[in-house]
């Protein structure tokens, strides 16, 4: 059982949600209304994040020796804490035994800011292992200094929340939607001389109703997700149509520039790991790279004196053992850090489920609980969007081909109603649309939904329910959540315990 989490001063752990519904405060109007309508039968309890073996964070076992050999240097890149200035840290990856060792691997480690949310990938992608989701202790509190305060929406024992403004803070009629980084390099000991920047006015944005948040998504298994065939995703979209229509479930694909299905990120706004890694390196850490060479703020010339891009190809050519570059081994360069981060993520194995907590109140073993829980997951209709698995096609990394990926997502976008809407449009994804988040590893997550609004997985299920308004339609999950609430107490609890086993 995990420790108690506090959110907005309200305990959401171990408290029957019927009581929570009655306790709901007035400003949570949508949520209260929602719960009041349908939650009378909800009795399940969240056993909390699954402890024990992580079951995530390791490289795929089928990789070749050559591929596995990249694990230490690229994991180091993912863990690397960036500073504002400095030089790349280079080291020998192996002992050559033939004289001096030329630097072969250079970790990008400078270029933080001028605006940033955190200083390493692993600081936010941490639970239960590097590559994962938000840790139990919020890393952004480490960046407070005389010039930077931690915004009030961040909590020391809460999820890392990355803020976006749906509309421009100076003109609420103009869409914005971009990340507005929490911090500046001003006030840091390694600040660039004369660089003075102020943090965004989150207070004003909040008072405008113009402040939305997203928490880190885990990346385990993304290497499989990115090669799933579009055809399979579309076939799945068009399966079980009668049942989906009866439930009010639609679904839409977000579309990438080549016409394929974009599938990573909260709104499926990214097609593949590599461009996402490039974008995130700049957006979250302010480290310019060869994909995104623009500094996060160029308004003060003193803040952009680092040569750009700060993360770049290591052009160092000199090899070891007297080897000469030829067509087949060109070039001997490690690519930029963002590329290495992408390799790290690509090679992470899909999460391994754990055992269920036995629903002993109803006399069940762990196996019986999980088996029935999965059955209820399907019969309630959860699996209509949280598709249990896809199988990858033949892979050019052979071990990644023909893998059954138990991701529990259709990789499609769905309307979730005004209660979850963030008013940010990304491609096909409208302001109330979200990608079905893969549920693999959900048993180990501390916070749920895009903005980490709850640490209780039962509440997370209930939060899928939302009535529509003049702006957005009802949530596509409403019928399924109603079915969940109609389950017997035992079936509900088994379903919950099943989820926590993932």
């Amino acid at each position, binding site marked *: 059982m995990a420790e108690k989490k506090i959110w907005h001063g309200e305990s959401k752990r171990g408290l029957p949600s019927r009581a929570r519904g009655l306790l709901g405060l007035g400003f949570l109007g949508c949520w209260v209304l929602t719960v009041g309508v349908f939650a009378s039968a909800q009795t399940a309890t969240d056993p909390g994040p699954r402890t024990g073996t992580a079951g995530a964070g390791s490289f795929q076992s089928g990789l070749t020796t*050559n591929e596995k050999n990249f694990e230490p240097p690229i994991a180091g890149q993912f863990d690397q804490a960036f500073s504002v200035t400095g030089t790349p840290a280079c080291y020998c990856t*192996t002992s050559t035994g033939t004289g001096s060792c030329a630097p072969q691997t250079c970790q990008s480690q400078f270029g933080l800011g001028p605006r940033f949310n955190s200083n390493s990938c692993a600081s936010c992608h941490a639970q239960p292992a590097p590559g994962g989701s938000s840790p139990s202790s919020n890393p952004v509190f480490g960046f407070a200094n005389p010039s930077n305060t931690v915004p009030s929406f961040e909590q020391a024992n809460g999820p890392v929340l990355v803020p976006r403004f749906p509309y421009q803070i100076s003109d609420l009629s103009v869409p914005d939607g971009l990340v507005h980084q929490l911090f500046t390099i001003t006030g840091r000991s390694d600040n660039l001389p004369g660089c003075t920047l102020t943090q965004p006015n989150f207070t004003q944005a909040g008072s405008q109703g113009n402040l939305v948040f997203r928490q880190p998504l885990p990346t385990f298994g993304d290497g499989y997700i990115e090669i799933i065939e579009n055809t399979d995703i579309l076939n799945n979209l068009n399966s079980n149509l009668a049942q989906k229509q009866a439930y009010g479930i639609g679904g839409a694909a977000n579309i990438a520039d*080549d016409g394929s299905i974009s599938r990573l990120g909260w709104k499926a706004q990214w097609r593949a790991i590599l461009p996402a890694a490039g974008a995130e390196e700049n957006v979250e850490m302010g480290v310019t790279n*060869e994909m*995104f*060479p623009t500094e996060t703020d160029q308004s003060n010339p003193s803040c952009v004196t680092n040569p750009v891009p700060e993360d770049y190809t290591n052009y160092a050519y000199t090899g070891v053992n007297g080897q000469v570059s030829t067509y087949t081994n060109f070039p001997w360069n490690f690519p930029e850090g963002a590329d290495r981060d992408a390799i790290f993520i690509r090679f992470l194995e899909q999460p391994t489920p754990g055992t269920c907590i036995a629903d002993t109140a109803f006399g069940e073993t762990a196996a019986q609980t999980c088996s029935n829980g999965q059955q209820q997951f399907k019969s309630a209709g959860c699996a209509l969007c949280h598709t249990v698995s896809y199988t990858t096609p033949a892979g*050019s990394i052979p071990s990644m081909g023909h893998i059954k990926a138990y991701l529990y997502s259709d990789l499609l976008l769905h309307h979730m109603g005004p209660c979850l809407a963030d008013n940010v449009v990304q491609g096909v994804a409208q302001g109330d649309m979200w990608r079905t988040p893969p549920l693999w590893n959900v048993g180990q997550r501390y916070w749920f939904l895009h903005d980490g609004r709850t640490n209780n997985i039962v509440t997370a299920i209930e939060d899928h329910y939302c009535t529509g308004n003049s702006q957005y339609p009802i949530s596509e999950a409403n019928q399924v959540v109603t079915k969940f609430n109609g389950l017997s107490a035992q079936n509900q609890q088994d379903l919950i315990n099943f989820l926590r086993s993932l």
Partner: protein
Amino acid sequence: MPSYAGKSLVPKSLFRAILVIPPLALLSLTLATAAKAQTATDPGPRPCKPSDCAGGFISGLTTDQALMKQQGSNFFAEVNLIAGGTNIKRVGLGPRFDANSCNSCHAGPANGGSSLGFNVTPIASGTLCPDGTSITTPQGNQLFAQYQGCGAVNTMPFFEQTNGPTVVARMPFRSDLVTPDGHVHQLFTITGRSDAGTCNIQQPDFETAYAEGNLIFRNTTPFFGGGLVEIIRDSDIIANMMAELTQKMALGISGHPNLNGDDGSVNRFGWKAQKRSLILFNGEAYNVENGISNEFFPNELDETPGCTPPFPDGPASGGNGTHGVPDDRADYASLPTPGYLMPGDPERFAIFGRFLAAPVPGQCVADSAFGETAAQTCSNGQTQFNNTGCVLCHTQSFTTPPSSVGALGGQQVNLYSDLLVHDLGPCDADNVTQGSATGDQFRTTPLWGVGQRYYFMHDGGLNRHGLMPETNIVQAIEDHYCVGNTQYPNSEANGVITNFNNLSPMNQQDLVNFLRSL
């Protein structure tokens, strides 16, 4: 001299406007309004001399960087097969594709450039198929060398011409003509090729799409100087946008950046400024144009059974069949020593593009009819270019900030573009929206190297001129003029074109000769 359907196109014509056939009523109206004073003659593409031809590399590269640039060039020129190539980096073509290598289209006047000019022989020639047959490489449009290469059963789409621009096709709308599409529809398939296994798919129905007004074309954009363009600061681009506002407003010029949806930066590559950087551009193009799935776009363009990997190794194989998706990826086994990593081809193409030098201007053709020397012509031509207002969008230069590739930093970049997108009116509208670039908006095309280009405007003239290639730079200037309609506003260039048409014959000619010196 280029021709289409047996008709001489008279590339240096003074009189194209009055030769225009009736179906192009809108064009006639436009020219009647704007072009009455047009008297200049296009001297034609400037011959490519070693001293002033694009395609060289930037100076000041380190030894390591210099060693990579030529390798990058080789990869850029590699001809991709479906399977059975001699190297893992040379497989994965299709199942749908426009061309089999980058420099099929980025060819003129050198690797990394634009469409190869008419009657120009390409640098590379002779491609071996897996079955031992070779593809002969003709002059001009390189697609004619490929479309039935290695046994493929493609027909050549009617809009491609041996002496025309190498264009790709997009359909603004889906077949219902209502739902936006906008994506590239590849010209060819691998069906019938000796290395294509059992793949059997059809080419798109371009005739129907064209008849429905749902087929638009895009010529190839050159990469010269790309490494400089990608690091120009957004703040400099925005400051330039905000400069000389009074004059811009008087002429009806505005313009705005196409902002990247990820980090909010100013996108700047492609006809609609839809791409932020060379790597991202290459990742898309490698799949969209060559059908080679990669770490940016990992799946095949068509997943019909039999058309996706694995494909069997061909007879000439060294064991390098296409084993799965993505076709192209980092090569983790390139050396026995761990720690050496070959990145994917998009990154390597980007090294090539990043190190390509800016085009080198050449001499003006002297306007001897008015007694001018070459130097006088160029000097006055540039003055007229500035005075008419061309330069308000075709910004002469930006300066790069310090760069981690030292040779790219602190450079004056004479690109002649503001890197913004502008309304060009319904005449050139392609009805494709990309980011904040709407159906009639295009990025100000950088004019460096324009003196050596054969085809102008985003479509090489094909959409606007009834499939006739646009080879005349004077016509290209005039085509910036367009009257708005209910769907799209006036072209932002109208005031400037009127200024151009009001210039004296000498000033007009000098301006044109100046452009051809770039």
